[in-house]
């Protein structure tokens, strides 16, 4: 059963919610209770005046499951709107990662070179380490982490995906 659930492509779903206490727990509880995947999840207030938060969830599943996820999310009382960004047209996805690399000598220099190629910035530096900030889609962040691995990768902190639809239409 879980194999079936896991099957299918990734979808990025944006959920606009009333920023009330426990709303994130409702969304997360829905996913765990019904056996859906969460590959990544971000949440932050996006409209302080109207008290609204946006949750971006990356999940996976076949068409029937993705439709269910959408319908189940819409069923939650504090949810304003649910958009499947993957399904509903082109969207932009970004992730930010802070990556600590502990290296000296040639590895340290190589790490800086790779960072330059990825337009990653060193936001902290000691004689033996860097913290790089890299932004991009998840594939780019993964590639950067893979390259840092042999150079002394020590720690990774990622935001998870934030996404928004391209074009003039707003959620």
């Amino acid at each position, binding site marked *: 059963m879980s194999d079936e659930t896991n099957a299918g492509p990734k979808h990025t779903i944006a959920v606009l*919610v*009333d920023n009330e*206490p*426990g709303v994130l*727990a*409702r969304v997360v*509880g829905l996913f765990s*209770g019904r056996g859906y995947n969460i590959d990544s999840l971000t949440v932050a207030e996006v409209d302080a005046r109207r008290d609204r938060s946006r949750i971006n969830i990356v999940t996976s599943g076949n068409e*029937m499951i993705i*439709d*269910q996820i959408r*319908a*189940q999310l*819409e*069923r939650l*009382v*504090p*949810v*304003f709107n649910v958009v499947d960004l993957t399904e509903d047209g082109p969207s932009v996805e970004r992730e930010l990662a802070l990556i600590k690399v502990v290296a000296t000598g040639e590895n340290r220099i190589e790490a800086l070179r790779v960072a330059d190629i990825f337009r990653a910035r060193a936001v902290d530096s000691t004689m033996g380490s860097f913290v790089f900030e890299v932004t991009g889609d998840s594939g780019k962040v993964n590639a950067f982490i893979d390259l840092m691995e042999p150079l002394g990768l020590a720690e990774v902190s990622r935001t998870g995906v934030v996404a928004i639809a391209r074009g003039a239409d707003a959620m």
Partner: protein
Amino acid sequence: MSGTAQDSDQNETTETLSGAEILIRALTDQGVDVIFGYPGGAVLPIYDALFAQNNIRHVLVRQEGGAVHAAEGYARSTGKPGVVLVTSGPGATNAVTGLTDAMMDSIPIVCLTGQVASHLIGNDAFQEADTIGITRPCTKHNYLVKDTDEMGRIVHEAFYVATQGRPGPVVIDLPKDICVNQGVYEMPDLDNLQHKTYRPPTTGKESQIAEAVALMAGAKRPIFYTGGGLINSGPEACAKLRELVKLTGYPITSTLMGLGAFPASDDQFVGMLGMHGTYEANNAMHDCDVMICLGARFDDRITGRLDAFSPGSTKIHVDVDPSSINKNISVDLGIVGDVGQVIEQMLAGWNKAGHQPDQAAAKDWWTTIQRWRSRDCLAFEQGKDVIKPQHAIQRLYELTKDRDTYITTEVGQHQMWAAQFYKFEEPNRWMTSGGLGTMGYGLPAAVGVQIAHPESLVVDISGEASFMMNIQEIATAVQYRLPLKVFILNNRWMGMVRQWQELLHGSRYAETYSEALPDFVKLAECFGATGMVMEDPASLDDDIRKMLDIDGLVIADVRVAKEENCFPMVPSGAAHNEMIMAGNKAAESPKVTDDGMALV
């Protein structure tokens, strides 16, 4: 008090009261006339406010689980939301089973739970539980009131959420200090309430209605498959359903939850479908070409094996909850809307298009159905020695059908026999735990029904094992002089589990014998009720009449055949057209695979 005329005008809409008083005011403004509850430390301010008024009656149950089931019985028999009041900690956790039951069966409940004072929340205080966290997955929504000024708004919103769209239970968690503090209450305009985010669907899309009506009109082997959504939509929806079914002449079947939406005695009704449904209903579902599902949700007890469920049909599904559509079964046309309104649209669409059902096809289809019917799948043989459980319910039906009767049940074989043999002609007459299958539901539910309908006959069709699960509620019934009739089909087994052990587990009856049963007559007497034993088939009718004539609570211990199985049965993992019929030996029955066994 500075008393200018202007001030007193304002006071009519805005008042300063304690949180508990605001709560009671808001409940009164919602038209609540009864609360099922149990007091405790955290809700003392609320009980104090209840004590000081006469608009709302409080019914004291004997355990909080009973309060929720009683409120469910009240809600299901009246169509109004049921209200529960319990204390913090164990009061709230005891309510969880009932809340889950109401969630599964879409029953509107507003459950008020006490909570420790705000400053103690999170400190593991005495009788503290994370009620909001615990009840989040088993409620439609829940609220923690953090400000007394918010009390009124939240109560009214809770009723709106509980009753609109697909109904369900809503919890309001009430910290003690919030109930004591003073706050402002403003009566909202209840007719024009609009929720910030929640927009329940009402009518279906016209283009889809037209498509559905055309599919229905072109059908050769159609069937209406109806469920609890019709009961929830209300008596008007059920009246419209009758109109539509009569207009088309098509056969109709119902889920356990939907019984009574269409009269069971009508010739177009082919009986309940599903695991213990009739041969004709399940075969008609399997062989139909157009299935019109109205307010039902393709539950696993209905569908059996998913890939063999009605393989050749075009499926139309009407549901108020979009998440019910395409959840288990992929349908061809999913219409989101209130089922009553959609049926009305369908009627208008059918009449406008001037559709006529295909008479020749209908004749063939009914001929086939009559052939299935002639199999007489519910037949049983009543001998002279022992009362058959089916016979007991059949006789109960015959002797109560002309009265103003409400039936509740517990869960198990007796429940399925009641569904098969008690014929419901009207909605809201049948209260049973469908989705969750909660043993111990029937007695407290009957309490709620009888409180709502004091002059009516309320019978809890029970089993001896289920009855033991909420037996404490006898005291509630006695206290309020509720003349309930508890009709226990006593076979000394947890019958349905025993049946599964017989059919699926080589008759290894692990832990299913009802050992050490009480003497139900003495039990009744010690509570101040009347006990009866019924064991002779020859005097059963007289015994039932005697039970009905007693003006008070009767607990009838009906000794029935011990190892009777409930048939027909679609064994798990099987298709609708592979039913086990009465008289089949287990060995001759369709083979249950390991996959089927795991489905349970």
